[in-house]
């Protein structure tokens, strides 16, 4: 058992599966010799060989396209897109190919591929290093979408993703790589070594895909969050004193409907939080599902706290980011509603 950063946990996950399964290969831009711009693949090439961890040309559709071909031929590629903002050229191969090959071949060909990508803002990356495209994946059937919020989950979910027989999109909130950021950008950075979920077991373990976890038990309102927003929601709860039940979704698709519904039936209120642009964000689906399935339990409208419908700006980053103040205000608003 070791304290790890999220970067180390992700690296360890790949190292562990590569060690037990020689069909696992890792590639992407700068991931080979250098070990990735966020260092998530550092030392994997040295340890597992150049043919199992290598640099790719700067061509995201080619990275995913070749990974699909490899997966069809029995490998389990785990590829890195350098920033989620650069997955768009690969969106055709992901959404129109990887997602449907099992279905269209009636199971003859399958794509056990994982596509990792750093997502989200909070690092002054501007509009092309900050986006959260999860809703573009959840709209596509045939793929799974995962977002960890801490090193323990990151490692366990990534191992589960690589071992899964369907394509998995693995979104890594880059602002969490080095610590559990709660949105208070003006406070000192807390490292993962100070957080209980920085505790990461050695060797092989999995966190199952499709299962949410309750991060904080509460009675008054259910907060649905994932990634960075889990920590923001915790801070907002703390600061407002609202007794929120915070659900860390972990897997967005397929969604853990039971956990969500049970909680909302109990609390009668629901706040959905994400960093992505609001309109047609994943919060829309969560809101729709909650009110479809828990309508008669709801005492207040399901409320979304999200990034605004603007590009992610550079200088106004903290006005864009849905921090604890905005989440807190929403918590109070739904508690006052009646």
């Amino acid at each position, binding site marked *: 058992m070791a304290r790890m950063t999220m970067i180390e946990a992700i690296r360890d996950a790949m190292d562990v599966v590569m060690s037990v399964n020689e*069909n696992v*290969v890792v590639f992407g831009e700068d991931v080979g010799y250098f070990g990735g711009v966020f260092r998530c693949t550092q030392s994997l090439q040295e340890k597992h060989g150049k*043919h*199992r961890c290598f640099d*790719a*040309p700067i*061509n995201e*559709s*080619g990275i995913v*396209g*070749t*990974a*699909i*071909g*490899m*997966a*069809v*031929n*029995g*490998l389990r590629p785990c590829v890195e897109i350098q920033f989620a903002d650069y997955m768009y*050229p690969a969106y*055709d*191969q992901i959404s*129109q*190919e990887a997602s449907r*090959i*099992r*279905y*269209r*071949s*009636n*199971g*003859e*060909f*399958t794509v056990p591929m994982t596509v990792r990508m750093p997502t989200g803002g909070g690092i002054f990356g501007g509009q092309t290093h900050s986006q959260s495209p999860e809703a573009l994946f959840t709209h596509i*059937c*045939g793929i*799974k979408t995962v977002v960890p919020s801490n090193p323990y989950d990151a490692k366990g979910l990534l191992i589960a993703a690589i071992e899964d*027989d*369907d394509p998995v999109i693995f979104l890594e909130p880059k602002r969490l790589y080095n610590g559990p950021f709660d949105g208070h950008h003006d406070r000192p950075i807390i490292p993962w070594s100070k957080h209980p979920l920085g505790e990461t077991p050695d060797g092989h373990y999995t966190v199952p895909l*499709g299962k949410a976890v309750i991060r904080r038990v509460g009675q008054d309102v259910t907060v649905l969050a994932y990634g960075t927003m889990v920590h923001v929601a915790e801070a907002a709860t703390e600061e407002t004193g609202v007794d929120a039940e915070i659900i860390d979704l972990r897997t967005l698709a*397929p*969604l853990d*409907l*039971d956990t969500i519904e049970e909680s909302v039936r109990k609390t009668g209120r629901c706040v959905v939080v994400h960093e992505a642009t609001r309109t047609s964000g994943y919060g829309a689906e969560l809101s729709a599902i909650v009110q479809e399935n828990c309508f008669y339990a709801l005492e207040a409208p399901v409320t979304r706290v999200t990034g605004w419908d603007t590009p992610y700006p550079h200088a106004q980053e903290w006005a864009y980011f849905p921090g604890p103040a905005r989440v807190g205000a929403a918590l109070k608003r739904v508690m006052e509603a009646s």
Partner: protein
Amino acid sequence: MSDYQPLKLYVPEPEVRPGDEPDFSGVDIPKAGSVRRPEIDASPEEFRDLAYSIIRVLDRKANAVGPWADMLSDEEAIIGLTDMLRVRAYDARMLMAQRQGKTSFYMQCLGEEAIACAFRKALSPGDMNFPTYRQQGLLTSTDYPIIDMMNQVYSNESDPLKGRQLPIMYSSKEYGFFSVSGNLATQFVQAVGWAMASAIKGDTKIAAGWIGDGSTAESDFHSSMVFASTYRAPVVLNIVNNQWAISTFQGIAKGDSATFAARGHGFGMPSLRVDGNDYLAVYAVAKWAIERARRNLGPTLIEYVTYRSGPHSTSDDPSAYRPKEESDAWPLGDPIERLKNHLIARDAWSEDRHVQTKARLESEILQAQKEAEKHGTLHSGGAPSTRDMFEGVYKEMPEHLRRQRQEAGV
């Protein structure tokens, strides 16, 4: 800048349009046998000129000539002829079936039969094709059951793909035929990845990617070239240049100069052009490139020069955009006629045997069709089921799909 003329947009146009005389005088066709045959380990720089020529074996008198000739026995060549006749007969029946309303859609490979049929014969078991919708010859030239192809076309109860796919989007792992996609070019780069995996695993199997002339314009073509050349993937990259992409002539994808094959040079890739209506030439070039890949010498780009004699699909009417007689005027002739004449010239075949074989194949196809139709046709209803629609999206059905299936009442 007053001394400059106004700029003007250039838009390439085919030589002729409906109403005009067909004109292929611009197509430069070298004599059969005139193009040399490099060693398979020769450096691509040494034969760049081959991307600007056309490798041909069968001459006008139906003799096989030059360094690419003499690779097939009488028996093998007869099988080739039979394969081409079979796929043509199959196409004719299925086209008819579509016209009769038994299915929604069909696509023939009329005039291009030599390419897939000959290429197939140069492959080894375990190799994988990533075909387009026009390489049915890759399947019909094996012992894959024709009836299963028909079942797929009919989306009937025995459709191996459970009615999920558009007709002709076959899939057979066992027969080295990757599930056809409706999105152009995506499979080309997947072929490269499949081949890379073969190399990563230390296997001896190779992949073949297929793409049309029009589709080379797609981005995935570039990705394929980049990855194949960088990692020297054991893959043969096949461009079927049948002159047309629906209503669009090849000059829109290619511009007015260079050739599709020449695109390989920017990647240091061996690049060959071959007469796609010459079964013997296709076989010889395929064999060369496949051997190169399997010897770990890397990828080859091949452009097959051919002509799409039929409409693009059953939804298309080419008389709106090209002269009706253009197909007959195509200077490389018909692949079946040419191989037939060659075999006759070689004393291995006769008009009689040809007529008999054709009749036998047509009756086999008809027989298979009758069998297939016992399992239903598209609109005969009932099968495949709505339940099948919900299966196989994921390996295991997730909760939300289970609920939806319930909502659908099945």
